[in-house]
Structures are given as C-alpha cells and as structure tokens.
C-alpha cells in the first residue's frame, strides 16, 4: 500500500553515495586484476581510504536528514525498478565494516605483501582482490532495498569468502572450503525459494512494498521459514555450525578475521531485515523464542567446546559459534517489547552493538592469534609461555577483545549485553538473562586460560621464531580498543541506529 512510501521512494541527497559504497570496492577488484603484480595491494589501500570516507559521508547524510538515505537506480520506481536504501542499521554496519576491513588491511600488509624480487605471487594477489570483493558484497547486503538484490549480494559474499578459506591450498583447507560452500549453497537456494514464493504471493520483492502487503498466511509462513533456515546455515547458528570451526581456524589469520568478524554478519543482518522489517506482522513471539533457543544452545555448546580446545585458533573459532548465539537473542526480546507496547529499540540496538563489538573483537583476536603463531611457530594454548614478553601489545589486545566478548564495562560487549539484559528483564523473559550470564562466565574462563598461559615467563634463552612488525601489533590493538571503547556509544546524542526505521515491529503488529 503506497501510503507510507513517498518519503522513501525518491533519491535523497547523498543517495549516490550508496552506489559508490558498492561500486568503489568492486571497481578496486577490477582495476587490481588489470594492474596485476603489486597492483591489487596498492588499489586496496586506496579503496580502503575512499570507502571509509564514503561510509562517513553516508552517516553524515543520514544524521543531517534524520531519515533513511535512498537511491532509485535508473529512475525506475519499485516494484519494477530497484532501490538502494540505508537506514540507521545499515549505516552503522557500513561504518563498522569499513573500520574492521581497514584494520585487517593494515595487518595483512606484512602477511600478504608481495615478497621482494617476486613479480606476482598467487596468495597475495588473490587475497587483496577477495578482501575488496567481500567488502563490496557486504556493503551491497547493507544497502539493498529488495530481496533479489540481497540474494545476489549474499552469493557474491559466499563466492568471495570461500576462496579465502583455502588460500594456502592445503588439502585440509580445500576440504573445509568445499564443505563451507555446500552449506552456503544450500542456504542461498532455500533463501531464493522463499523469495520466489513471496514474489508469487505478493508480486513484489521491494522491502517496504512487501512489508505493507505481506500478511499471515501459509505462503508467507513457508517463505519466512525457508529464508530463515537458509540464512541460519550461512550464519552458522547451532546446529548448522559444523562447517565454521575448520573453515575459520584453517584460513590464514587475516582471512580468518574477515570470515569470522564480517562475513557471517552479512547473512545475520539479512535475518534482522527480514524479521524486523519485512515479516514484522507475520512472525510470532513463539517463533522468535525458537530462534533464540537455538542461539542459547549455540552459546552453551560453543563456549563449552571452546574451553576444551587445545589450539588457539580453533578456540577462537568455537568462540565465534557461541557469540553468533548472542546475535539471535534480540528477536524474542524485540518482539516481547513490541507486544508490551514498548519501544523495541533497546533490544535491536543491543543486538546490533553485539554484532559490531564482536566484529571488531573477533578480528582482533584472530589477528592476535596469527601473531602468536608467527612468534612461537605453534598455537597450542597450554604452551604459550613467553608470548607476553615478546608481544606485549598483542596480549593486551587479546585481553581487551576478550573483555569485550565477556561483557566487562566499558566495552561494546558490555553495553550490548546490558541492553539485552534490561530488555529481558522488562519483558519478564528471565531465562535469556540466565543464558547470557552463564555464557559470560564460560567466555571469561577461556579468555583467562589463554591470557594466563601467555603471561607465563619464557624459558631461559628462549627467542622468538620470527619478529613481528610493530604496525601489525598496533593494528590488532587498535581494533581491540575499538571494541573495548564501543561502550562509549551510549554517549552518542542521537540514536543513529533507529534513524529512518519507517517500518518497525510496533507499527506493523496488530
């Protein structure tokens, strides 16, 4: 029903920036291929700077206008044409991804710089191109205004992420990459089937149009079930997480940081879009509870399995499995708040903050693990002695990132869990609060095990296997600090995340 569309359906000032946010990284990929040799790395750094500037400009346009930024491609109105839209949720994700990709780019200069004397090596060449491709696809996921563009964006993201897993070309990583690809393909084909059903039932895939037309009936239920289960396979929510630990732990450190920090957030963001914006009137509180129950199982199983790991990278990968669980606790809380006639922003902001603080913290942790591996030549958790004296900044970064995962103040994880906990108390869903507290305790256990092991003094005469450039350590520390200080977001004068949320749970639910 077009009555709440006009505000959305014109190209707003700054709308062209959305096109640039997607176009610039992909233009970087293409020019990188043309230049070859050291080209991709140089192009990547230029693109990183430009992309961050574009992200800030979009945020500026959003806050200035106080409404979503939109761009109508080719001037064709939806439902025939395609619109790009960025509301508050999209913009904070765009910015967070730009910052994390920047940190990973600086870190990866040492690992994936072209070695002197070599004109072109395969892994560095491919890494920079894929880094830009992941970034462009994620930006497309955040700004797409219709479900089919989102499908294409998700597939691009998968195609860019899968080769990152097997950059070193070992049998083991090829196998994890193939397993990841199969899970992801099943996920995307289920998503596409849901989208097709929606088009058949409602004749549009544009998000605001669809949100106005969709109503509780079997076609909509089937679509939401298919799309959600497909996206859960891609996000690796328990029990569809089996592909994640080998894939994330086997990749090179910089690639693990991209995969674990960012790539899974793409499909998760889409679940948020669907449940909050498209199917707000279709999904019920019990279905949201089921989603969060899977999340709770992920938190408990992921954390307990992480505690039992002997290798640092696998420990961090299982920690990702657990942290994904927290991302799904927001759904029943938002539904509960809306059902009680309250503003669901507390729960939604909590979930988004959890995603951002996990993105920064997990990227920092994987890169820290990479530096530990370079220094020691292994990553056995029980045998990390001497790391603290060789890499003081890195161990500090690991501890700060761990503090954010545990949820110690003033970290982003603290603010996120605080918002989710208060939403859980307000809506009298105490069991989610209990899960969060137990999860926090288990997380603190494995963070302390690693930090204590790393603090142990080195043996007499022990020397690091390889020295690590200072800027790599600084990049890791910077991302960890971002996560640790994200709690300061509470001081932000405007609630950026809720700008331009025309369709929300409370306006659509009967």
């Amino acid at each position, binding site marked *: 029903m077009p009555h709440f569309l006009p505000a959305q359906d014109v190209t707003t000032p700054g709308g062209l920036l959305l096109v640039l946010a997607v176009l610039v990284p992909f233009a970087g990929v293409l020019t990188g291929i043309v230049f070859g040799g050291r080209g991709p790395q140089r192009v990547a750094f230029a693109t990183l700077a430009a992309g961050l500037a574009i992200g800030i400009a979009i945020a500026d346009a959003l806050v200035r206008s106080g409404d979503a930024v939109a761009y109508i491609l080719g001037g064709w109105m939806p439902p025939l044409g395609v619109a790009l839209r960025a509301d508050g949720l999209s913009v904070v994700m765009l910015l967070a991804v730009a910052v994390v990709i920047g940190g990973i780019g600086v870190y990866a200069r040492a690992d994936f710089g072209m070695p002197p004397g070599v004109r072109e090596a395969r892994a560095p060449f491919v890494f920079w191109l894929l880094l830009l491709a992941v970034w462009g696809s994620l930006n497309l996921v955040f700004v797409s205004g219709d479900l089919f563009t989102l499908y294409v964006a998700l597939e691009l993201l998968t195609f860019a992420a899968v080769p990152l897993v097997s950059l070193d070309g070992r049998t083991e990583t090829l196998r994890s990459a*193939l397993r990841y690809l199969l899970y992801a393909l099943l996920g995307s*084909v289920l998503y596409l089937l849901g989208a097709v059903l929606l088009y058949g039932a409602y004749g549009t895939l544009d998000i605001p149009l669809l949100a106005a037309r969709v109503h509780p009936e079997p076609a909509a239920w089937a679509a939401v079930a298919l799309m959600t289960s497909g996206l859960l396979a891609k996000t690796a929510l328990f029990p569809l997480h089996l592909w994640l630990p080998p894939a994330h732990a086997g990749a090179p450190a910089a690639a693990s940081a991209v995969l674990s920090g960012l790539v899974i957030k793409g499909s998760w963001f889409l679940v948020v879009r669907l449940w909050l914006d498209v199917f707000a009137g279709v999904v019920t509180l019990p279905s949201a509870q089921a989603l969060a129950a899977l999340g709770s199982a992920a938190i408990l199983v992921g954390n307990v399995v992480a505690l039992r790991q002997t290798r640092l990278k*696998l420990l961090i990968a299982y920690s990702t499995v657990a942290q994904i669980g927290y991302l799904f606790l927001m759904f029943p809380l938002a539904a509960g708040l809306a059902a009680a006639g309250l503003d669901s922003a507390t729960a939604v902001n909590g979930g988004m903050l959890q995603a951002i603080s996990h993105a920064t913290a997990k990227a920092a942790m994987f890169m820290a693990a990479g530096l530990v591996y370079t220094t020691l030549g292994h990553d056995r958790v029980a045998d990390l002695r001497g790391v603290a004296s060789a890499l003081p900044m890195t161990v500090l970064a690991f501890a700060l990132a761990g503090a954010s995962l545990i949820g110690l103040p003033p970290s982003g994880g603290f603010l996120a869990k605080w918002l989710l906990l208060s939403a859980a108390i307000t809506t009298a869903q105490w069991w989610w609060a209990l899960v969060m507290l137990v999860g926090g305790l288990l997380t603190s256990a494995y963070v302390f095990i690693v930090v204590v092991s790393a603090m142990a003094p080195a043996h007499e005469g022990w020397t690091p296997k390889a020295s690590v450039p200072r800027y790599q350590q600084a990049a890791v520390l910077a991302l960890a600090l971002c996560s640790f200080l994200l709690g300061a977001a509470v001081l932000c004068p405007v609630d950026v995340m809720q700008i331009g949320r025309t369709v929300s749970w409370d306006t659509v639910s009967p």
Partner: protein
Amino acid sequence: MNGTTLFGLCAAALVGIGLYGLIVNPQPLRKILGFNVIGSGVFLLFGVIARRGAAVGMGGDPVPQALLITGIVVAFSATALAVALLLRLFDEGGSVTLTTDAQQAKTKPDPPDA
C-alpha cells in the same frame, strides 16, 4: 488439475529430490548435483509464476523472467566454483571425501582438529 498446479507440483518434487540428495549423499559431486536439482525446481517455480500474467491476456510477467536468468547465472557460477574446488581437492589429496580419516567411522562430519 491445470497446467500451473502441475508445474508447481513438479517444482516442489524437484526441490524435495534435490534436498534429499544434497543431505543424504556423502560424495561431494552428488551434493553439487543435488544443489542443481533444487535450483531447477526453484527456477521452474519462478517460470510458472512468470506465466501467471498470461491469464489476464498479457504475454507474461517480465520481472520473474529477468530474475530467473540472473538466478541461473548465479547457480552456474556456484556450480563452477564448487567443481573447481572439488578438482583441486582431488589433485591435492587424491580423494574427494568431505570427512577426514579420523572421522571415517563416524556418520556425522564433525569438524576435524585442523
């Protein structure tokens, strides 16, 4: 039963067969084929939806046809990527199983200790 319902049921059957194959078959190549069978089901369904406009005298709905072609291209590239990975895995490891030696006895592919 009219043509639309028949095609719709065929699409549902294809999705079901493909899903069964993808989940049950342990060989990666068969899983890839299973994915393609599901894809065919989805595309057939989209084709049926595109024909729906014909009832009111239009030739058909062009939007699903455009989306359908994009979907086929995406599924084709996905298959190409999966087969390329599979061939590389065969070259490197000499076999194409998704389970490692330690897990051969198990039925469920648990993550290996990489």
